[in-house]
């Protein structure tokens, strides 16, 4: 059972890295600024996913703390950027 879990984890990690590459390509080719903002938000979500996968692979819970910090602070950037795009000023 242990071997299956690690195999699934490594496969999922590989898939996530491929998905990050696709997202980066899509952000590079993005039609308008909102697409790039969505891509940036998606990339932060994928880093969270990879952190959780590494936490599972290495069986250490320190990575969950890193993911907690990333999520709690990362989404503020997206909201500030979307407000900046909407109203031309952030506050």
């Amino acid at each position, binding site marked *: 059972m242990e071997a299956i879990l690690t195999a699934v984890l490594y496969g999922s990690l590989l898939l996530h890295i491929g998905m990050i590459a696709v997202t980066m390509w899509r952000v590079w080719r993005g039609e308008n600024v909102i697409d790039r903002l*969505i891509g940036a938000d998606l990339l932060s979500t994928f880093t*969270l996913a990879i952190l959780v996968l590494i936490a599972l692979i290495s069986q250490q*819970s320190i990575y*969950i703390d890193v993911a*907690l910090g990333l*999520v709690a602070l990362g989404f503020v950037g997206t909201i500030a950027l*979307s407000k900046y795009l909407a109203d031309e000023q952030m506050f």
Partner: protein
Amino acid sequence: MTTFLQIVAIVAVIAGTFFSLVGVVGYVRLPDVYTRLHATGKVGVFGGVLLLAAAVSGTSLSIGKGLVLIALLLIIGPVTSHAIASAAYRVGIPMVGQRNDLQRDGALAGQRLAGEQGQVQDG
């Protein structure tokens, strides 16, 4: 007991990765900004939460932090999608498709860009 938890972890990781895959395919393939937002919202909520469920059942140390993170993700996903969607509509990005409820109700008119191009499709 641990093998059962590991089975749960395996199933959760596979499901989480599947939803992330669906989200990315949606992000690349869908026609306009709003439908793409619909797709990427899934990645953050389903992908992350299922992976965290696997992490909570896999590494038995981080149950509290994992549940806090799951609750946080469930709140943050819709909030960011809504913020980006309203920013997109304010900038005046046209909607591909038949229905434009926001414009028909006149609640939030996309002024700037739409004003210049003047081609926000009607409902």
